[in-house]
């Protein structure tokens, strides 16, 4: 067997925190990449997957530095190479594709100029050759009519097309390795599918090896031969995608797989999560990083750091019990049915809601175009759609954060579309909202206690003296320690902040809770905790929930009924299970088809990855 293209041995990366401490973001990471191989690096936020990728090219941000280990590209050491040498490697030998295609292109330069500059940097002197090569690259990534589009500016391309252009730029230097850091996270599911297909084709036709960094198990299943699972800065499992995804050895891999919502899971079942929160990387690590959250942890797991050992010929796992067990972990039990009471009478009705955003000198944009829906007490109405479908606008209009331009909103049969000052106050007490971004939706200057008490104050609930007690009660209700009331939002993780947001929404005792993408900013293992909390609260308090998300699988499990939105209209609405199994609208069908499942279908369709590795 020839030497691997890229060989990483015992890589360590540290950051210096503002307080002067050090944060060990990547600990002892080792892996190899062969020519033409596709490797997925998968993990949740803080697992060190992006840091590892950036460390390969020594492009660590801020105070980050490599404190140990080696990175060899074709046998050449990169951790000690000079800046000149690295410049020659970046782009030419290792190309990079970033997460957000909307900000990665310079808006004042044409696409042609972007490609031209990259090609010039790679030493192509002749202008005409560069242009011809640019056209060729655009054709390669599937941009129609490339000659004409070279003169267009980035704003004339859609998000998916921009990502294609960025891939073309990364390929311009004919690199041996393409590093893609969450290349599809900012894109809609249907576009994500196209980009993954493109990446797969490119690696086959050009022989470029691909390192795909992602948090999405579905993306891994669809695009990569081999997968490296990271947790808390360490590699926990490494092996062929088909093996790892179907027969996980490490409890974290198994937990992560079980936590991914499946489209096949019926409505009214509980999402599986991983209890606890990811480790604090600023603290020294003894033993396995996952031990604190692991149901199978033994005494030695907390004291001895598990080495990455070969469990089978191809799979390596960093778990002491797993190395001895020799057997893969049993599949997770099927999702448990939740006993939930049947929905009651209708509380909220929307009839023909319209909302148009006008901006000076430009065409107006219709965000809502005659949306009608009903919501019963104790019922969850799921709303799915891609970005720009108007689902967030609908949430804001229903919560009276923005006025509607037309149509009616009825609360218990009373028209509350354009309430007066007093009625608005009464409506708000009954209709509350949970926001998408748990970082932006909490005032950083207030303590958690003050944030949760804010609606109590506003609605004059209780005397100032008993508010503290009510706040403690609310925090306990959402699964937080009442002692959290004295701390600021910045000392909490994303999932905990979302709990604070839910506690605030519950404070005035609402009947309707509008959740605008409450879990899309959270990791899958934490997502299940928040969804479970909302379901429990609904059962205990009889809340009517509007659950907005772009992930159809989560929505199906949570909702009684689903409404599918597309371009400001509801294109299909119906019973959750019925809609997912017998979609009638073509758009619903497209959404269902594009949802990535963490099952390695590729293993069935193309030659088995195990063979590809040994070839």
């Amino acid at each position: 067997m020839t030497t691997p293209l890229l060989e990483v041995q015992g890589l360590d990366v540290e950051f210096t925190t503002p307080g002067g401490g050090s944060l060990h973001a990547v600990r002892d990471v080792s892996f190899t990449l062969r020519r033409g191989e596709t490797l997925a690096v998968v993990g949740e936020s803080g697992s060190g997957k992006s840091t590892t990728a950036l460390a390969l090219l020594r492009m660590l941000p801020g105070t980050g530095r490599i404190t140990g280990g080696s990175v060899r590209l074709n046998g050449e050491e990169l951790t000690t190479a000079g800046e000149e040498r690295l410049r020659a490697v970046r782009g030419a030998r290792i190309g990079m594709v970033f997460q957000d295609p909307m900000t990665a292109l310079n808006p004042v330069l044409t696409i042609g100029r972007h490609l031209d500059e990259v090609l010039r940097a790679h030493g192509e002197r002749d202008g005409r050759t560069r242009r011809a090569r640019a056209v060729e690259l655009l054709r390669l990534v599937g941009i129609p009519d490339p000659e004409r589009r070279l003169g267009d500016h980035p704003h004339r391309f859609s998000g998916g097309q921009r990502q294609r252009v960025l891939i073309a730029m990364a390929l311009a230097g004919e690199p041996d390795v393409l590093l893609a850091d969450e290349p599809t996270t900012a894109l809609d599911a249907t576009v994500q599918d196209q980009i993954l297909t493109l990446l797969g084709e490119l690696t086959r036709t050009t022989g470029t090896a691909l390192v795909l960094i992602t948090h999405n198990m579905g993306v891994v299943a669809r695009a990569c031969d081999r997968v490296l699972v990271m947790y808390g800065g360490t590699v926990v499992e490494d092996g062929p995608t088909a093996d790892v995804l179907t027969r996980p050895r490490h409890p974290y891999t198994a937990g992560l797989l079980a936590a991914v919502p499946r489209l096949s899971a019926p409505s009214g079942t509980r999402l599986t999560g991983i209890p606890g929160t990811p480790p604090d990387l600023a603290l020294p690590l003894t033993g396995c990083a996952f031990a604190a959250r692991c149901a199978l942890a033994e005494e030695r797991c907390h004291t001895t750091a598990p080495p990455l050992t070969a469990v089978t010929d191809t799979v390596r796992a960093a778990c002491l019990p797993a190395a001895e067990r020799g057997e893969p972990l049993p599949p997770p039990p099927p999702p448990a049915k939740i006993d939930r009471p049947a929905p009651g009478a209708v509380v909220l009705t929307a009839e023909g809601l319209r909302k148009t955003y006008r901006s000076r000198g430009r065409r107006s944009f219709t965000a809502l175009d005659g949306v009608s829906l009903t919501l019963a007490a104790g019922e969850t109405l799921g709303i799915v759609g891609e970005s720009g479908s108007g689902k967030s606008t609908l949430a804001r209009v229903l919560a009276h954060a923005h006025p509607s331009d037309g149509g009616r909103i009825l609360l218990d049969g009373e028209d509350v579309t354009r309430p007066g000052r007093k009625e608005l106050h009464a409506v708000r007490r009954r209709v509350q909202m949970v926001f998408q971004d748990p970082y932006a939706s909490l005032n950083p200057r207030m303590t958690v206690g003050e944030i949760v008490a804010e609606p109590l104050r506003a609605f004059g609930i209780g005397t100032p003296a008993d508010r503290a007690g009510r706040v403690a009660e609310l925090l306990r209700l959402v699964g937080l320690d009442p002692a959290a009331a004295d701390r600021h939002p910045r000392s909490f993780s994303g999932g905990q902040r979302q709990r604070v947001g839910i506690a605030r929404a519950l404070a005035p005792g609402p009947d309707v809770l509008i959740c605008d993408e409450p879990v899309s900013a959270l990791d899958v293992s934490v997502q299940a905790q928040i969804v479970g909390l909302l379901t429990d609260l609904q059962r205990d308090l009889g809340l009517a929930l509007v659950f907005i998300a772009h992930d159809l699988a989560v929505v199906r499990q949570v909702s009684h009924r689903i409404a599918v939105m597309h371009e400001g209209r509801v294109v299909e609405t119906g019973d959750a299970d019925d809609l997912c199994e017998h979609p009638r609208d073509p758009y619903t069908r497209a959404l269902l088809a594009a949802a990535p499942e963490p099952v390695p279908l590729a293993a069935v369709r193309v030659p088995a990855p195990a063979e590809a590795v040994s070839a």
Partner: protein
Amino acid sequence: MTTLAAAKPAPARKPRHPYRAALATARGRTGLALVGLVVLAGLLAPLLAGHGPTDQSALALAGPGTPGHPLGTDDLGRDLLARLLHGIRADLGIIAVAVPLGAAVGCLLALAAAAHPVADTVVQRAFDLILAFPGLILALAVTAVLGPGRLPVILVIALAEVPAFGRLLRTGILVQSGREYVTAARVGGTSGGRILTRHILPNAADPLVVQIAVSLTVAVFLEGAMSFLGVGVRPPEPTLGAVLSQSMPYLAQAPHFAAGPLVTVTTLVLGLSLTAEALNREIRR
């Protein structure tokens, strides 16, 4: 679904207020020490000077180290140390009134601008008008109307600082009011006034603190320049700019005459700039 919070032990050091942390850095400490030195000299002027700032002696243009006159005397035989210390006192008195006045007026106008679109247009154009005049032209225009003196200097400095504070706060309010937590507060039933005072203003105020340190620096310059040009505080009362102006004809034969005010202004400006920079770095993090 168990309790998650407070599982981690509290960090060893309690997080300090960011401003205190900023001022505890080497940069912040140096800045504060320099400013403190000058301010102390100004406050203790009557105790340290030993002479009145306008007392004349028989010695004119005595060199430094002359008995009874550590820094020497000026062309009229007045003690330079006394004039310098009282000059600092006068200067600090002016900028300590003028900058907060400018800041207060600027912030009030910014609030008005944020409240109503018509007020916004009026305020913005007024700021444009003030900014169209360079500081010294503004100074000459104001003194042409009011005549020289302490009050015109204060007015000029305040006027020059109003747009800086106004623009900064207006931008801050606009940025913060678009944030999701403000929408959350609105949906949570919080009243408009409380949203402004409790949610928006605390988050928009950070840049203002930095701007105060910057504005104090500009004010020192502006006061010095006005006194130097003879449109500032009326002589014989000493200010740093006035002493400097007076020393100009003697620069070749008695350079120590100009040294006092120059060193003082440099120290003060350096100290304020370091403080502003330290605060700014902390806030941007």
